[in-house]
């Protein structure tokens, strides 16, 4: 066990897997000598050499496309898109290619590819360094999507993603790289060191894809969340004195429907929480699933608490960000419904 922040945990996952498996290659913008703008790949080039860890041209479409080529050769590319907001030039290669190659070749070719990308808001990054685009990708058949909320899970999930035989998108909430963030933006920043989930096992372990975690057990209402929002959910439940059950989905495709179903059937109420814009966001999918499967157990309509349907603003970040001020009243309302 070592206390690690999320960056260190992710870096360690790279190190563990690259040491075990020569097929893993890491590339992306600034990931080589420099070790990435968030330093997730720091030290890897020095340790594993330039032909396994290298800088890529600024061409996200090219990064994803060449990674697919490497994957069909038989390597396991573990690539970085510098910000999720920059992923769109790679969209065609992800959607039209990576996600379907197993299907269109009836399993003759597969794409064991992991695309990591720092994601989400809370850092005053403006509209091109704050987005949460998971729903675009959740809509694609054939792509798994992982969004960790703490160092322990980040490492175990990344190792599981690397070992997965199919393409995995791994979104890293950048606001919680250095410490958990509960949305109370005017309180002092806390480091991971004080958080139990910063106790990260050394060496190899996995946190399985497709399995949610119950971040807090509760009886009154289920909050479905992932990434930074798990911390917002926990802090808000505490602040409002609501006995919420907080489900940390960890993987949104495939989503852990059993855990969701069991929790909502128990509490009879559900709030879905995400940073991304509301319309056709992943919350719509969660809300539909809960309605389809738990309708007769529901005491109140499922509520969504999300970012607004605007581009992510710069100065009004805290007006936009779905923090405790938005979740709190929603919890109250769903309990009163």
């Amino acid at each position, binding site marked *: 066990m070592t206390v690690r922040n999320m960056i260190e945990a992710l870096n360690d996952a790279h190190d563990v897997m690259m040491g075990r498996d*020569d*097929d893993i290659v890491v590339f992306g*913008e*600034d990931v*080589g*000598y*420099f070790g990435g*703008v968030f330093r997730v790949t720091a030290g890897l080039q020095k340790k594993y050499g*330039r*032909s396994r860890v*290298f*800088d*890529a*041209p*600024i*061409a*996200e*479409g*090219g990064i994803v496309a060449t990674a697919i080529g490497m994957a069909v050769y*038989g*390597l396991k590319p573990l690539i970085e898109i510098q910000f999720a*907001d*920059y992923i*769109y*030039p790679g969209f065609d290669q992800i959607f039209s290619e990576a996600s379907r190659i197993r299907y269109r070749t009836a399993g003759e070719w597969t794409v064991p590819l992991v695309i990591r990308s720092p994601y989400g808001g809370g850092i*005053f*990054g*403006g*509209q*091109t*360094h704050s987005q949460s685009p998971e729903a675009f990708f959740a809509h694609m058949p054939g792509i798994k999507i992982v969004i960790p909320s703490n160092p322990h899970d980040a490492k175990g999930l990344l190792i599981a993603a690397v070992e997965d035989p199919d393409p995995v998108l791994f979104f890293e909430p950048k606001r919680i790289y250095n410490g958990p963030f509960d949305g*109370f933006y*005017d309180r002092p920043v806390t480091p991971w060191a004080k958080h139990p989930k910063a106790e990260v096992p050394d060496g190899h372990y996995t946190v399985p894809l497709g399995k949610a975690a119950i971040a807090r057990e509760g009886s009154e209402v289920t909050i479905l969340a992932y990434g930074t929002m798990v911390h917002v959910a926990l802090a808000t439940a505490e*602040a409002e004195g609501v006995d919420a059950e907080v489900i940390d989905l960890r993987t949104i495709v495939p989503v852990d429907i059993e855990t969701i179903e069991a929790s909502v059937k128990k509490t009879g109420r559900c709030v879905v929480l995400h940073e991304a814009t*509301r*319309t056709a966001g992943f919350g719509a999918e969660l809300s539909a699933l809960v309605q389809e499967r738990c309708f007769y157990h529901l005491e109140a309509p499922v509520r969504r608490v999300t970012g*607004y*349907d*605007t*581009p992510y*603003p*710069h*100065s*009004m970040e805290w*007006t*936009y960000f779905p*923090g*405790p*001020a*938005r979740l*709190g*009243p929603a919890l109250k309302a769903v309990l009163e419904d």
Partner: protein
Amino acid sequence: MADRSERGANRPALSLHVPEPDARPGDTIDFSGLSIPAAGSAARPDVTAPATETHPLCFTLVRVLDDEAKAVGPWDPRLDPDTMRRMLRDMALVRIFDERMFRAQRQGKTSFYMKSLGEEAVAVAAAHALDREDMCFPTYRQQGLLVARDYPLVEMMCQIYSNQGDKLKGRQLPIMYSDKAHGFFSISGNLATQFPQAVGWAMASAIRGDSRIAAGWIGDGATAEGDFQYAVTFAGVYRAPVILNVVNNQWAISSFSGIAGAELTTFAARAVGYGIAGLRVDGNDPLAVYAATAWAADRARANLGPTLIEMFTYRVEGHSTSDDPTAYRPQNAGAAWPLGDPIARLKSHLIGLGEWDEDRHKALEEELGQLVRDSQKEAEKQGTLGHGHYDDVDSMFDDVFAELPWHLAEQRDEAKAETAARGSGRK
């Protein structure tokens, strides 16, 4: 992974080439291997020459100011002293402005800033060579275009502070300016997108029988994006009246230009493959930047199509306030750049002509420093990020569409209620 196949067992093993810069932290930077053609040595084809006649110029450097800061050779734009003094003033102003705003970021008055130290000529001289009505599609280090076109410094600062005076309503990251009246298109944080847009604007001008041309700027690193290929393809095919500038400052955050292909050929040489005119220019020579831009503008106005210009320069400082270049390149790399400093070069040139002197330069810097300080004071009256920043819930929902649809109207009302509740003590 399986071992190499039986079939290939007797062949040499392949290996991957990954470009690496000559020097890393701890090394001494050495530019002595850099080939620097003499000022005045590049031929100047007629503006109406076929594109192929420019192609040798993609492999040399158009330079006007020699080592003694004398203007030499066929590219000397023969500018009058007033124009040169104005260019000197604009570059000096950009530098002082940058220094001041960088410091403001360090003081916590905003979230982000990007300087253009050493690259001031690329934008300033180009702005003076273009017509005031020509349209600019910049990337993020061409603040000199705005300064050269007399955009108010207070407006720039209000944008940087995202404050109540910010015409972009606090929506954009600092330095992502936009101003239609000054022919300056909204800067995008997504790289390279503006380059083909510049071509489209130029095509529209041609469709309409207009006389205005467009100019785009892109970094060396971002030429790797597909957008670059869209730009040069469309520009060539439709002979669009556009100037496509590649600002090769040799660093894309931590990646040196070799990662964008600079080990293989020049960025200007992209023009050869697409059959369009191309020039490679000493970007730290304001007169060369002016002359090349004016040449390309004349050519575009004559309906002879696009010119790709590589502005060869050096990013003297970090990528942005979020970057520390000493983590990936030797300290003081910028100071060693052999093509010098554009302000110092133009200043020496003017002094050599007897049109400037040290005292006047000192007085100019003092005057500009005062202007920047006064502007800053004025801008800060309207707030800084976190202290009087732009904050209007209603406006946050404006401009997603021309008219507010029901779902945004609903969300706006939710946001207002949330803000009101927060104001009454809730978080």
